[in-house]
């Protein structure tokens, strides 16, 4: 790997091995630690990773989000080659169902490219992280929660009557406002968590500072060791893949439904209106087949994959049945989007046992 130095930052010219990639990422971490120490802020683009739920056999079956994929020396790892943004995206496709795309682009550009790529590519989706996934590090040694974002847009209510709520609170090692803890505790029991900031500290020093989002993205705000960082991201990918495989097995071996429980009551009429049109972020296109005052039955299509779904909805719960080989990622997607838009804190169960957890 050739290296040049520009303004104090080491630039890698061509990445062709996994080691090249790690060196490039490590250099970025070190540049940021150095500038943080000297100037109090970071200058290199922070590492971002996007967990991608895939029904494809390999990345070569789908186009790259920018340019084309080229294999690295290690099986399942790819780099993008592109006139405008070469060596800016990296793919870890070593798992069957969950790929990880690493990005060192600017956040706004990177988010847009990945968003459009998912929208336009058949057989892939985001990994929709449940509350339990987002709080995965809660009881793990050395990890501390340093903030969280809560969101409830009350999207089914008319604009003037909507009970919107959003809160993003970052806190340090010592909580300055002790009363804030109570507010956050109450709010997180009512509303959906869309991001959590985690910090790993060893001997008083920060080794990883990361913000995980419910859409399966993570931003690494600070990091010291590339392997430690990549492993922490891979841990979430493994966990999500385990959840997908467990849910797929349940779909195939039982006829029980996935149960999605909501923290807020939803407006069944408004829900019905949106899904009948096939619009909205949930991208469900459904026919209402039975209506009681507090219960509706729908059947139709999950427009992400065009798989069939049967959805029975009560005021604070939904039963999701996925016939045939339909993608089980519909369960966490509906839970996360419905939670943040309309339903507050959301959990998924099968036979009374929490899954995607």
């Amino acid at each position, binding site marked *: 790997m050739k290296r040049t130095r520009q303004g104090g930052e080491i630039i890698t010219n061509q990445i062709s091995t996994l080691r090249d990639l790690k060196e490039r990422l490590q250099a970025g971490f070190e540049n940021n630690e150095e500038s943080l120490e000297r100037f109090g802020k970071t200058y290199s683009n922070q590492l971002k990773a996007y967990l991608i739920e895939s029904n494809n056999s390999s990345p070569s079956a789908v186009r790259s989000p920018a340019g084309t994929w080229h294999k690295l020396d290690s099986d399942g790892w790819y780099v993008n080659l592109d006139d405008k943004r070469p060596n800016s995206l990296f793919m870890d496709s070593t798992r069957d169902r969950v790929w990880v795309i690493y990005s060192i682009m600017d956040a706004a550009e990177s988010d847009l490219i990945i968003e459009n790529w998912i929208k336009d590519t058949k057989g892939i989706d985001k990994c929709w992280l449940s509350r339990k996934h987002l709080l995965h590090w809660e009881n793990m040694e050395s990890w501390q929660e340093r903030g969280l974002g809560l969101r409830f847009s009350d999207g089914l209510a008319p604009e003037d009557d909507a009970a919107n709520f959003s809160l993003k609170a970052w806190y340090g090692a010592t909580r300055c406002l002790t009363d804030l803890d109570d507010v956050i505790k109450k709010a997180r029991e009512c509303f959906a968590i869309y991001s959590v900031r985690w910090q790993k500290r060893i001997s008083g020093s920060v080794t990883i500072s990361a913000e995980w989002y419910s859409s399966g993205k993570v931003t690494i705000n600070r990091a010291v060791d590339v392997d430690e960082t990549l492993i922490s991201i891979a841990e979430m990918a493994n966990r999500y893949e385990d959840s997908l495989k467990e849910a797929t097995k349940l779909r195939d071996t039982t006829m029980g439904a996935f149960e999605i429980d909501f923290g807020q009551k939803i407006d069944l009429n408004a829900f019905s209106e949106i899904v009948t*049109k096939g619009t909205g972020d949930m991208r469900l296109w459904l026919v209402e087949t039975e209506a*009681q005052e507090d219960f509706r039955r729908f059947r139709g299509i999950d427009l992400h994959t065009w798989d069939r779904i049967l959805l029975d909805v*009560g005021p604070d719960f939904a039963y999701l049945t996925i016939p045939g080989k339909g993608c089980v990622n519909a369960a966490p997607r509906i839970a996360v989007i419905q939670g943040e838009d309309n339903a507050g804190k959301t959990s998924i169960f099968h036979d009374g046992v929490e899954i995607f957890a």
Partner: protein
Amino acid sequence: MLEDIDVRRELWRNTIQLFHQYKRPGFIGPFKAAGFDEYRVEPYVLLSGTGVEKTPDIIASGKNGWLVLELSFDKKSKESTLNFYKQIDPRYLGNYNLPAHDNPPEIVMSRLEDFIPDGPYCKITVKDELKVKDEEYINNLTLRRELKNASGSDLRKLPEIPITLLPEMKSQEIRRGLIELVMQIFNPDSDGKDPVELVDAGLERLSDKINIASKRRLIKNVTDEMDVLMKKEYLSDYLTIDEETSKYKATDKAKQHHKTRMYIVSKLSEWAGIGPQTTLYDIKKHP
């Protein structure tokens, strides 16, 4: 409200869900509560000694025993069929990855509404609420207790099951079972579906367990209902059939637009006898 035309699916749905548990509004099926956790639909088995072939509707097994469940609309007694099930060789449980036992199975007869004299066996009905009769014929005391406790449970809001078509469904039942399969045809990447594909998808895990004659009848009935759907009063502008491949396909007029989707939904609802969508706005101006 659910109408009588959905009776077959209701019988299957409300019986199958007795093996499951839901937190809201709160339901634990008696078979689940008794530990009969694993079940298989329409397993092929042989009777002990005689080798007579049988395919009961459901076999379930758990730590404490095993169970054969028969579902029926037939007004005639099923006593002779149930007598045969008593002789199923339990060693076949292993072939279906179910916990094995060496005792005869418990037998339960499930019907939608009316109890029929089905012999010395436990009987349940599952229309709207669970009713249990003759539970004293159940030897497994846990199962007997759970069935008794669950009697009277509200079954009206239990989830749908993935099987959407069943043999012997009547016209309107078939139409309802086809709704989302027809919607899939409007996928821009779809190359259409023929009647066999529709039936296989609707039968889901029962697809390879239904006898050929029943399946052929169902395919014929599905073809008849699809012919109606493609008439002028329904979706003739949006759905066509490729005469060469016999596949139903979307026409060029079927655009990915919410007004088109609303129109298709309204016509599918009309065709399936569901009536207007409860919150559907004016759809006169469909594209």
